């Protein structure tokens, strides 16, 4: 299991780096959602090691604080919503909604350090990016959720539903 978690962390981190030049197009959300379905609470190991690696590469700035909770919130949402079987369309919508909400969720550190005016301005300025992020997440999840879930199932993993 430890090897499996390590490989999944490496895939998550490697794909984040590889897709970084594409603005707001990412598979991190989809992978964290799938990992949560497969590994349950052990996904938090992946999420926090991923956050640590991101900090080592990009620096431990203000943005890094939000990395400590945004993926945990996604894990929590998927854990709660995944208590009953859901179709890929549902998970694609959740992935899209997470993309739409990403800027809002990331504005919390600015609320703490700069007040509500700075946080609101930061969130408002980023809404066009959030819209792209939401659309990208939805489309990528529609395309990749089922094949990746089936692939993992074929190798003896958890049921894709």
């Amino acid at each position, binding site marked *: 299991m430890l090897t499996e978690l390590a490989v999944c962390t490496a895939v998550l981190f490697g794909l984040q780096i590889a897709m970084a030049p594409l603005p707001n197009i990412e598979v991190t959300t989809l992978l964290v959602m799938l990992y949560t379905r497969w590994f349950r609470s052990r996904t938090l190991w992946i999420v926090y090691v991923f956050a640590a690696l991101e900090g080592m590469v990009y620096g431990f700035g203000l943005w890094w604080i939000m990395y400590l909770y945004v993926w945990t919130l996604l894990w929590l949402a998927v854990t709660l919503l995944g208590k009953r079987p859901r179709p890929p369309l549902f998970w694609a*919508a*959740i992935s899209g909604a997470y993309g739409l909400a990403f800027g809002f969720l990331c504005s919390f550190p600015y609320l703490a350090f700069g007040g509500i005016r*700075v946080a609101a301005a930061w969130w*408002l300025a980023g809404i066009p990016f959030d819209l792209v992020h*939401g659309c990208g997440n939805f489309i990528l999840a529609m395309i990749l959720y089922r094949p990746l879930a089936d692939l993992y199932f074929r190798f003896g993993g958890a049921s894709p539903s």
Partner: protein
Amino acid sequence: MKAGHRSGLTAVVVLVLAAVILAGVWWFAAPHASAGEKHITITVTGQDGTTQSYPVDTDAAYLKEAAESVLTLEGEETKYGFAVYSINGETANFETDKAYWAIYVNGEYGDYGIDQQPVTSGDTYAFVYENS
């Protein structure tokens, strides 16, 4: 229709509504650049505290384009917009000196990055070398 499919369709409808509401919030609440020629002032205050002032006539919608007409800017595109590292050859190095180029609009600390700050005629935009 199966309950699972219904939950998927409901989630998509909620997603679309959320996207429309978000776009509406941005349209009505976010500052938008005005078109046409604007007369602005750009100042640069370096590490030694000296300030240089540049009157600018521009059609630029956002500060980056207006600033590039009178300043030499170096930086890079990040996922949060353009990050300014160097102005007229003077570099603010955050990694070694915790230094950065702050943007002030009419004396108030700016809320936006250089490529998201709308340009309004009559305003003064200041780039100030600061340490955190």
